[in-house]
């Protein structure tokens, strides 16, 4: 269901919506195409699901295309993902050939749309080769990288850089992720949608009901991590932190809730590692939720006493913002975009080890007033900085910017 931008005035403020309309007015009719590799699962799809209808509501002619590939294509792009985040991976010539052929085949299917677009946003590495397959392109092409590429495995970046260098601009989530590229590099941090199923306020009985649904004791402390079963999210480290914290809080319960994105073939292996680490502990619940279990995740986040995102590498970590929006302090890994969201000691804590996470869990659960104070600050911080409306403003600003790449000040008529 598409929600009108006007509804966002209630949350973000009337002035913010008016600001968006004025910024978008000169872009009326501009054809904008977003391309990624999945329509469901993962933060990118969630953002596009909202951004595209909003751009249309503001008068732009926006569309969202997805590319498809076979298992080897996703295997390779998963390696890209891991490699860009710094893991040593192998890119065999056979897999690279699959990658190039898949992009060529998808380019053929999307040729007319891509060729005629005024601005094309290509999200992440999966469709990055489309550009070279569309030599007759008329508009500006922007590579939007959602991954933490601050310290990539060099061979992977070397291969990819050759292709993304040809874009007119790129977008990274944080300054630390920007690379040496021969074009402007914009910085846009992700956002959350306050009116989505995952973030809307829920009735108290629904929040309470989620504990019953998953066999959680309503009277005992609950800590939660919501993320894919991915080694970079360190779910095993979370279990370690929970065990350390339980020495002083024996009633503690832990939920690890994850869903699998359709482009993540590694998830099953990590899930098995997590199950082994949890062993027979009945107070650890491992939930493998479907991609559309937004309301359940919402209820779990609201039901938890505090939320963890103990990633060791993280592009941004939307689950951090989601939890903060629900007034929960977050204990997050001291890495990537988490540093931008958690104001250490104000909206949560940044930690570098399971021991650090355990210490902060103990501190917050034994200082309830502090926990509540941090939660309130966290919610206000998200309101001012990480709502979808801010994200949309930046995309529109960027579209103005790519049309005049030489200027750092554009005065619209």
């Amino acid at each position, binding site marked *: 269901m598409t929600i009108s931008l006007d509804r966002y005035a209630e949350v973000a403020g009337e002035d913010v919506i008016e600001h968006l309309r004025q910024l978008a007015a000169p872009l009326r009719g501009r054809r904008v195409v977003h391309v990624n590799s999945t329509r469901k699962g993962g933060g990118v799809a969630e953002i596009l699901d909202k951004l595209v209808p909003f751009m249309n509501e503001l008068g732009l002619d926006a569309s969202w295309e997805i590319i498809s590939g076979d298992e080897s294509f996703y295997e390779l792009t998963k390696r890209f993902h891991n490699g860009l985040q710094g893991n040593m991976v192998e890119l065999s010539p056979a897999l690279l050939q699959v990658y190039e052929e898949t992009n060529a085949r998808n380019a053929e299917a999307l040729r007319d749309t891509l060729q005629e677009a005024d601005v094309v946003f290509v999200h992440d590495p999966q469709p990055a080769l489309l550009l070279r397959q569309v030599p007759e392109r008329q508009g500006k092409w922007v590579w939007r990288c959602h991954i933490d590429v601050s310290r990539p495995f060099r061979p992977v970046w070397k291969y990819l850089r050759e292709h993304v260098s040809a874009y007119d601009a790129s977008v990274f989530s944080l300054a630390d992720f920007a690379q040496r590229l021969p074009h402007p590099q914009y910085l846009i941090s992700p956002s959350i949608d306050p009116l989505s199923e995952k973030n809307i306020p829920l009735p108290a009985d629904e929040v309470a009901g989620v504990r019953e649904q998953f066999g959680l004791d309503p009277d005992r402390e609950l800590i939660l991590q919501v993320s894919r079963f991915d080694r970079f999210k360190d779910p095993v480290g979370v279990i370690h932190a929970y065990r350390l914290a339980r020495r002083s809080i024996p009633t503690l319960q832990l939920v690890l809730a994850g869903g699998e994105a359709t482009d993540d073939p590694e998830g099953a292996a990590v899930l098995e590692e997590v199950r082994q680490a949890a062993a027979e502990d009945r107070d650890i619940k491992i939930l493998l939720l479907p991609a559309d279990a937004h309301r359940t995740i919402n209820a779990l986040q609201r039901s938890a006493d505090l939320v963890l995102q103990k990633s060791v590498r993280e592009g941004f970590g939307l689950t951090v913002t989601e939890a903060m929006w629900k007034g929960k302090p977050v204990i997050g890994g001291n890495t990537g975009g988490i540093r931008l969201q958690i104001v250490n000691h104000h909206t949560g804590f940044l930690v570098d080890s399971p021991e650090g996470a355990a210490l902060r869990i103990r501190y917050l659960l034994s200082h309830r007033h502090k926990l509540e104070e941090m939660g309130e600050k966290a919610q206000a911080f998200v309101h001012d900085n990480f709502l979808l409306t801010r994200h949309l403003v930046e995309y529109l600003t960027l579209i103005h910017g790519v049309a005049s790449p030489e200027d*750092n000040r554009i005065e619209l008529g």
Partner: protein
Amino acid sequence: MSATTSGILPFAVKDCALIALATGRCAQNLRELRDALEAVQPSSLYHHFWGGLLRPRFDEPEFNNDFAAWARHALHDWVLAERLAVIDPTEFQELEGLRRELVEVIEERLDERELIPWSKPDQQFHFLDSLIVVFDTHRRVEHPRELVEALAGMTRSSVFYHFIDARRRRPDGIDDFRGWLREQGDGYPELCEQLATMDPFFSSLAETRQRLLELIEDHFGGPRL
């Protein structure tokens, strides 16, 4: 009582949107910071002093510019952080003057220290720049008294444009409100003086808007009935 002189243009309420860009230049130690400071575009200095007001930030910032925050949190050099934090960019007519002052403070610190302070690799200082897109809201203020109502409806970014960005944009280096008031009748010297004393550094843009609104409202004898 001042009155609007006929022929004076109304105050055109504008708004802006700002997006950050990476410059590709970063520093991992104090000497690299000094070298990069000497080379970056003036607009990058502007971004690191003023752009923060429109970036995600906490409403209780510890420091008023990014250089001071980095000295404290990445280099762990409290003395340098305090010296950098005390630099007031409004005292410099040109950004080049601000650049010289920054370099001077850093060189002094380099002379004092036996070892060059370093940051961890993932805490480097990234020099950023920004793109600002300015647009007309088509709202016009005919009389200074009406500024109260106009301010109440301004976005944070509109306050940024007229109260912060104006200082770089205008040849006289003042904000747009004072610039317009000075064109009116006797120039509202008292009100302008009060506006000039406002320090926008440690306030959020919402607080700045509220303070502006109160000063102008007080000047005209309280809220209109």
